[in-house]
């Protein structure tokens, strides 16, 4: 493959720029000397703080840049690569600016929020690096709509064969198809929670409570149909049950793939729901931090 990931972009250009920046900021910090504890309100502290604040503004501007499609300022990939490396560096710069003096106040709040943004960003980078490969492996060259297409086809064929089986098995299988759930809320998507049910019929199952039973991963219904095969009366019945088991197992595989696809897509996106709002919160906190600093000068 000739494609190049975001981290390796342009021979790690932005990693080097980031390291140089840290070194420069570290040097600046050191010029404050060890005479009295370093603080944010020395001139070095102000420079470091300004650099960090400008970096935050620049880092958040990626949201606009990536949507300015006619822009001539490099590629979005380059911006993303720089965003990642310099996003990590901003923690170092801000820490030097703060001189590690944390208290229960708005200044520390801004710092903590910024750290959370960077942390969520790191989660994002991690998922961007790992999830696409898993997604593609899970789909095996197909697309999600193809998976759903196959599922609908299997549903249809499953119903057809189920109608040819004895009424109770048929009803159980059809209920399992109708009561299959995919997706759901955020956690159901991210954790692949499967609340599928099926109705095995009243008499057959030796349980006190008749009605719907759990059918997570479709295993219960498969087991149910499989258990009917040895008890089949006729050859045609056995054949129908056999093909039903086959269809249900394929259906299970397809459903697993779909859920996995939903889960992985979810992980690709969910971090942004933390990253972006916290960015706004950080910017507000920084503004307050700056304002307050000048008020009490």
């Amino acid at each position: 493959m000739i494609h190049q990931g975001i981290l390796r972009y342009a021979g790690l250009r932005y990693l080097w720029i980031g390291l140089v920046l840290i070194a420069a900021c570290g040097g600046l910090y050191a010029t404050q000397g060890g005479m009295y504890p370093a603080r944010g309100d020395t001139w070095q502290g102000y420079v470091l703080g300004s650099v960090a604040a400008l970096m935050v503004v620049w880092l958040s501007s990626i949201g606009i840049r990536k949507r300015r499609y006619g822009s001539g300022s490099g590629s979005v990939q380059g911006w993303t690569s720089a965003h990642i490396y310099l996003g990590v560096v901003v923690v170092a710069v801000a820490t030097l600016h703060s001189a590690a003096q944390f208290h229960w106040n708005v200044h520390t709040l801004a710092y903590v929020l910024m750290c959370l943004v960077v942390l969520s960003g790191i989660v994002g980078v991690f998922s961007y690096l790992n999830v696409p490969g898993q997604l593609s492996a899970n789909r095996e060259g197909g697309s999600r709509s193809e998976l759903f297409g196959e599922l609908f086809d299997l549903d249809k064929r499953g119903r057809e064969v189920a109608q040819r089986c004895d009424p109770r098995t048929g009803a159980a299988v059809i209920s399992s198809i109708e009561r299959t759930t995919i997706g759901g809320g955020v956690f159901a998507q991210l954790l692949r929670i499967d609340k599928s049910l099926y109705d095995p019929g009243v008499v057959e199952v030796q349980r006190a409570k008749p009605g719907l039973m759990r059918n997570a991963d479709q295993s219960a219904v498969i087991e149910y149909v499989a258990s009917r095969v040895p008890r089949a009366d006729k050859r045609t019945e056995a054949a129908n049950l056999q093909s039903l088991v086959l269809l249900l197992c394929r259906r299970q595989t397809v459903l697993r793939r779909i859920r996995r696809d939903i889960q992985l897509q979810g992980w690709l996106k969910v971090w942004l729901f933390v990253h972006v709002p916290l960015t706004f919160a950080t910017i507000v906190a920084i503004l307050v931090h700056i304002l307050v600093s000048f008020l009490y000068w």
Partner: protein
Amino acid sequence: MTEQTPSERFRLAIVGAGPAGLSAAARAAELDRKAGRSVPTHILLEGSPAHAKTIQRYQKGKHVMAEPGFLNLRSDLRFEAGSREAILDAWLQDYKRIGINMHLGAVVEAITGVRGDFVIKLKGGAIVRAENVVLAIGLEGNPRKVGAPGDDSQAVQYQLDDPKAYLNETIIVVGAGDAAIENALALSEQNDVFIVNRGKEFSRAKDGNLTAVLAAISDQNGRLDVFYETKIKRITERAGQTPLLAVVLETPAGEKTVECQRLIARLGAEPPRRFVESIGIRFPNTRSDAIPELSRRYESNVQGIFIIGSLAGYPLIKQAMNQGYDVAEFIYGNTTLKPADYQLVEWQFCGIPFFKDPDEALERFKSKVPMFRELNALAFRELIIESEISVAYRDGPEYLDESRKIAALIAKQATQGRQPRATRIMREGDVIYEPGEFGTSFFTIVNGSVTLQSIENPSLSAQLAAGEFFGEMSLLSGRPRTERAIAGPACVLVETPRRTMVKLMNSNEEVRKGIDWIFIVRELQRHFAPSATFRDLRTMAAGLSVKRYKAGEVVFSEGETGDRLYIIRSGGLTLSRKLDGHDVMVAQIAAGSLAGEMALMGDPERRETATATLAAELIELRRDDFLTLARRPDAPIDPLQRAASRRVTDNARMQVRPESGSLMGFLMREGLGEATDVLVIDESLCVGCDNCEKACAETHDGVSRLDRKSGASFANVHIPIACRHCEQPHCMKDCPPNAIRRSPTGEVYINETCIGCGNCQANCPYDVIRMVYDAPKKPGLLAWLLTGAGPGLGEQADYQPSEAAKNKGKKAVKCDACISVKNGPACVKACPTGAAMRIGPERYVDLVEERRG
């Protein structure tokens, strides 16, 4: 018509009431009126029940364009761009007003006789006599009939305009092609449909249709069924009963009667050629797109029979109407009429030295070039009108004078709202094209000389003189130019666009042979004999021929003893080797390269099987000829051997890494063998943000030309539905206004003259062309970010076009590789993770070999 006595003869009978025929009849009627004749001397015969059959059949409200814009209309009928209804209505009013002697429903079955006394036999036995006949029957032909008693019933139809118009009927669809399948599928949504198929299967159908129809037939709840190996025996109308028709079918299991409301036959059309030939008109060859030979006055080889409109090779309405006018004038004795495009030709020629008038210039050009002499006057005029004339002057006062003159002409044209049209003025020594540019044209030297400079070896340059031509390599293979062309002293060139040239080659065997021959000579020079002259290679080239292979056809097989090599003129070859019983692809060879040369250079055994990746044209060079070339002192033996040994290692490397071969195989199956610039997405990097699609829509008026999610994937490589800018674009093949162009840098794009006919969409095998209305304008990015105004970024699903957009009609859109966007392909630039990339064929090997760039 019965009132006509056998002795009565019309001066002019026109067959076909399309734009060409109507316009011819209108002119004849006007001439009758002017001469004060009360009895018409013309007759217009139309087989269908209304005028302009093809346009009648367009969908309701379809916008019809008036291309080409540079041509003025010359007709007694009105015509300007507008809706189908407006145009049909204007013609109806006009032909009634003018008083055309039109007979609708008059199907012409035969034309016999000679000039002065043609006998036109109509269906039903009536006879029309005429001194001259104009054929304006178009190319569509008549639909094939069912061919069973009763097939003339009103309830038997040969087209389907709106499947939704029928509800809960029983309908028989006859036919097994795509049209029949598509109709049957659409009808079966709310009707009971039977397909009657004469064969055992649907072998002619497209894959998509085949799968869909088989699925619909096997669907037990569906409303579609099929009779295989079945013929219609009889159709009877059951007066007063519903359903109206009783259709008797001859099935393998015996006769069966189906009662139905209607029968739709989709058996294709009888091309008009056989009818035209039955009159005695000759076609230059058997190609399906051949055009009959015509004189400058549209007269065919049968004197007194004239051909105009799309049958004469002019598919556009305005051209056809102008020809109708002209041909009637000619027939009624106007010998001095200048064609409607006289002025255009004058402008084209006005910058050449010693220019007098267009007719003289045309004669002069024609006499100077052997290839032009092969053309008849009409074909040559057409070639010139579609071409550009360039003249080189020595840098100095003369050059400045001419440039000023042309600039003034263009400025004048601009004030009249015309596109510029004038001779192109160059300086001697100017570069005509650079290597690497995508050639879209073919050059003929009328005067002076041109120098072709080889890039590999700049010391070798060829001097071409008047009568010779160049640029044939790009014309035939679709590959970029390989040399630099420089205008020499006093050079006058005719630059002809590719599609005109292709049309010409298809209709003129001599031109085709001439270009084929020169191609072979130049390829021999390029590969084996860089300093050979034409004379040196003449005999050898004459003995070589171009062989055509269909996609998938085997050129040579592994294990054979080879005695020849191949030069690939167009298309490409796949080389594969057998490995444990499987075929492993080891190489792709593109147009312009050699294949199988190792058999003549050390190892006579074929180590690979070569198959045509797509339709390919190859030049075969046998051992004797090769040895003759290799013995020449200028033979580049060293480079040839080096290239051959590089291929040995490349092939071996691919063989030991079969996964690369299977990825390459995937790329070829996806049609990348003919691509020049393709969007490839690395799935292991793609996060599915669709920023590529959004970027495409935002930089292209709100309509995305790429569909990321669709398209095939293999081993993490995803080929989305997006244009690949093919070497020989399928979309360009059949564009009436010639709106699809290729830029010198290779991008294939559609310009604003698109008439929305949809031919390109149908011709593209990769489904990358969409027909869409203009999308509504959106508020800017900041307005959206801050206030949420508008539908957001990217193409808005199911956007509602404005009234103006609807009036303009649907237009074809496709990827133009961001030729109009300053900062390069927006899809690639907008990809945050580097997953999207556009590559050309030269990087496929890198792609499969995981070489990072």
